[in-house]
């Protein structure tokens, strides 16, 4: 027995010759459980931790032959290149602005629909509505890009067909960059609101029905119920989900934007985000070091924002937050 062990050392399964609270003892006692974590741990080490060593090529002139450890040093050249270009402010602004639009519009719409859906008396109808609204969430971004194309392509697109049908002028929508932040916001809301409605509906259902009964006795009407009970009761969840979403605001939705916009040069000015820029720098230009530098810039700022918004979430509600 060492002096380290304090009072409460009543461990029944002590293995002879091993310190009861040492790491070896624990590993021996629960070796099966530790083995069970092994595949996932190996996965994380290979795909999440090992790539961190690759970040050094942001400071090197990366070439395939020398690899990440031996390519010549370049200092902060690539950061300079990026921040002195017009792209730095453009893609940063687009990332933040698009995400802000997605978050605000998406959540306002989902909260509204959840409240209205909760008022539907017929359970079957409610279910049908929910199933329909959740549907787009299951579609891949490639499929959604095809759907967007079927709506907006200038030759046969449903929108132009409709406009021509009622005698209005048609447009080449894929050549109108000023519209695309709005279009993308609509697409994003359409794809994800069913998901958020489910969360918000679960919150509404969990509100104590006695609150409503008491309010009704006091003469509250439907509007009072919604604005003075339902929404205030939903607030903690709304604030929490907003804060967590804001924490991720530095990360663009690559799958969405690269599927829908791709390399359409006309639209990029308003829709190119950090993630799509990094991909293009790496893939189209082969600029590995530059792409890594931009990725590192994103990771660092993204990390700081997560910490800030997580802290805010915790200040708002002690039990909440990511960690």
């Amino acid at each position, binding site marked *: 027995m060492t002096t380290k062990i304090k009072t409460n050392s009543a461990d029944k399964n002590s293995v002879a010759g091993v310190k009861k609270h040492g*790491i070896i003892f624990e590993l021996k006692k*629960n070796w*099966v*459980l*530790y083995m*069970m*974590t092994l*595949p*996932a*741990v190996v996965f994380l080490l*290979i*795909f*999440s*931790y*090992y*790539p961190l060593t*690759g*970040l050094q090529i942001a400071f090197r002139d990366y070439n395939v032959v020398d690899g990440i450890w031996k390519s010549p040093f370049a200092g902060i050249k690539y950061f300079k290149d990026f921040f002195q270009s017009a792209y730095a402010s453009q893609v940063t602004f687009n990332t933040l602005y698009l995400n802000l639009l997605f978050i605000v519009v998406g959540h306002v719409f989902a909260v509204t*629909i959840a409240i*209205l859906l909760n008022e*539907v*008396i017929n359970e079957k*109808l409610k279910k049908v*509505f929910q*199933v*329909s*609204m*959740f*549907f*787009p969430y*299951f*579609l*891949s*971004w*490639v*499929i959604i*890009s*095809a*759907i*967007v*194309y*079927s709506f907006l392509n200038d*030759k*046969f*697109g449903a929108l132009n*067909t409709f406009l*021509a049908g009622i005698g209005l002028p048609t447009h080449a929508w894929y050549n109108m960059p000023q519209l695309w932040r709005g279009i993308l916001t609509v697409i994003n809301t*359409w794809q994800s609101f069913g998901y958020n409605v*489910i969360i918000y509906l*679960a919150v509404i259902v969990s509100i104590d029905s006695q609150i409503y009964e008491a309010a009704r006795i006091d003469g509250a009407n*439907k509007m009072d119920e919604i604005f003075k009970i339902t929404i205030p009761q939903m607030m903690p969840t709304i604030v929490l989900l907003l804060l967590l979403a804001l924490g991720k605001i530095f990360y663009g939705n690559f799958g969405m934007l690269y599927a829908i916009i*791709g390399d359409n040069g006309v639209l990029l000015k308003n829709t190119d985000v950090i993630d799509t820029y990094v991909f293009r720098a*790496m893939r189209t230009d082969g600029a590995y070091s530059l*792409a*890594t530098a931009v*990725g*590192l810039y994103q*990771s660092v700022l*993204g990390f700081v924002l997560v910490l800030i918004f997580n802290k805010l979430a915790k200040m708002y509600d002690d039990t909440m937050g*990511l960690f």
Partner: protein
Amino acid sequence: MNRGLKTFNVINTIFLALVSLVTLLPFLIVLSVSFSDERSIAKYGYSIIPKQLSLAAYKGLFGAGSTIFNAYKVTVFITVVGTLLAVLITSMMGYALSRKQLKYKNFFNMLVYIPMVFSGGLVPFYIVLLKLHLSNNIWGLIVPMLFNPFNLFLIRNFFKGLPDSIMESAKIDGAGEFRIFWSIVLRLALPGLATITLFYALAFWNDWTLALLLIDDTRLYPLQYLLRQILSRVTFVATSGAHVTGNIPAESTKMATVIVTIGPIVLVYPFIQKYFIKGITIGAIKG
């Protein structure tokens, strides 16, 4: 019920019915176009009801030398194999982390959390994929997606909700931890397992970014990536045996490909929806 409330209910129901319809509308248009005669599309454009019914697009897609068939095989393989492995890996770790007796579980929790908030970004990740020889390799579409932290915390929370007494009594009967996990816990946690199985299956079925990074060999194209190539028209003629007008795929063919690509998940979706809902509401609270 007073009259104002009745009016509200009627208007509310109509409004939500419209929202639901508008949500489904884009899908209905695609479905209609896929069953439309190509000339009627050229003449009238897209519409919700086909002006002239035609199965030509589907016949073309599944005709001789079709690449769709092959892409289907690839996608089914990566979805089935990937989902099985991912669910196994995730639920094993989830079970271990759900056990109170595991002293270092916080270390493992942190090991999962940290990459969620700080990552090396695309380029280092891509270089690792290349080092592992995952380019033009079907495992390249599977292995990098075998573990998802969101699903881990979901299933861990699910395991945590199971009554401890069952595990304890099995232990007294002499069952080891793996035995408890395999023959008792997995059975009790079926709804939770169903949820992460669906999340993983959907992720494998819908992913196209790994193929974008790794796959040049057309025989290894998964459905989603094939669809993207068809949409971008570049390699369509080279990769598809479908009927084409000139060098551009027919509109109906494109949309038929979309319908085929959406796949069986959508057909069963109304029936499995409750598992997704359960998973989302568990996952949204923490994780």
